[in-house]
């Protein structure tokens, strides 16, 4: 009896530790993405005309910063939830919503960033990364960080399904 229960409690502690570490990494990634995006800013002057770019200028980047901020706050609050609480089912559902939010904001920022880097000849939009390379690098770093956070949230969702569905039949019924 005792060896079984201690093995089970070890498994439980390992599971709990794994999810906590993953969630902490996700909070760090989304926080980093939000901060880096908000502080992206560059000013250059071409032939006496000064050209300033901030993240404010593009609604896609504003949405990106807000979505990552929401994900950070949510992730931070979930870290404090005790493991026996019934709210974990709500957390799984909210995880899906947060993943959708992060995914759409990452995709939108990537699309606008692509127009900024390569331009769009059909619409007559010229690329701006040649004039403000530091801003482009800043935005790229924020995108990478948010992508890491998105991948971690997807892993957390897959792990939730693994715990619920038990596909390898590890639990004894």
């Amino acid at each position: 009896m005792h060896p079984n229960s201690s093995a089970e409690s070890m498994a439980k502690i390992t599971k709990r530790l794994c999810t906590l570490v993953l969630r902490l990494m996700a909070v760090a990634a989304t926080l980093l993405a939000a901060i880096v995006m908000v502080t992206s800013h560059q000013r250059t002057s071409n032939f006496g005309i000064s050209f300033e770019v901030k993240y404010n200028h593009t609604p896609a980047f504003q949405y990106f910063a807000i979505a990552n901020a929401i994900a950070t706050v949510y992730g931070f609050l979930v870290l404090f939830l005790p493991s026996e609480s019934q709210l974990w089912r709500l957390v799984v559902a909210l995880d899906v919503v947060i993943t959708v939010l992060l995914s759409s904001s990452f995709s939108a920022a990537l699309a606008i960033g692509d127009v900024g880097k390569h331009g769009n000849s059909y619409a007559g939009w010229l690329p701006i990364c040649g004039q403000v390379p530091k801003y482009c690098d800043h935005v790229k770093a924020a995108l990478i960080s948010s992508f890491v956070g998105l991948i971690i949230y997807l892993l957390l969702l897959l792990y939730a399904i693994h715990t619920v569905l038990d596909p390898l039949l590890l639990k004894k019924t």
Partner: protein
Amino acid sequence: MALENGQKPEDKAELAAVTKPTDWTIVVLRVVAFFATVTATVVMASNKETKSLVVAPPISVTLTAKFQHNPANVYFVIANGIASLHNVFMIVVHFFGDKFKDKGLQLVMVAVLDMMIVALVSSGDGAATFMAELGKKGNSHARWNKICDKFEKYCDRGGGAIISSYIGLLFLLVITVLSIIKLLKRN
């Protein structure tokens, strides 16, 4: 013993009565989501507008706006196409999946695929929405001019496709959450 034997078939009947309504709910939701994503794919894929502008009286320039010109729109069409196929596949699995005695990985794959498709469609929506917003309002700071004042029909159709995709995304989200909750209850 007699009580146990007597209780079991009743319990099974009760379980069947409880799970049947939720099964039909999910199928109806999947059908609606399928129609929404198919509409989005078809409307965006057929989005094309040609306009000829007179530059100087004898010379006129023909400009075409196609959905392929914008990589975000291409991704939108692909994502919604994959989501439509997924919806069809899930409806088929729902009706014919019970015939197999060995369910195997069916439950796992349904939940996992649902979540992946939700992430895919949401990213397609996000990209297409902000590209459409850029086309509608332009960006004065980057000196990108708006194109919707010249290509109104193109913008309207694109907007309609995006709205339809959002409806599909909402239904897919509800389906995913319902499936996960149903699985949690079963355990």
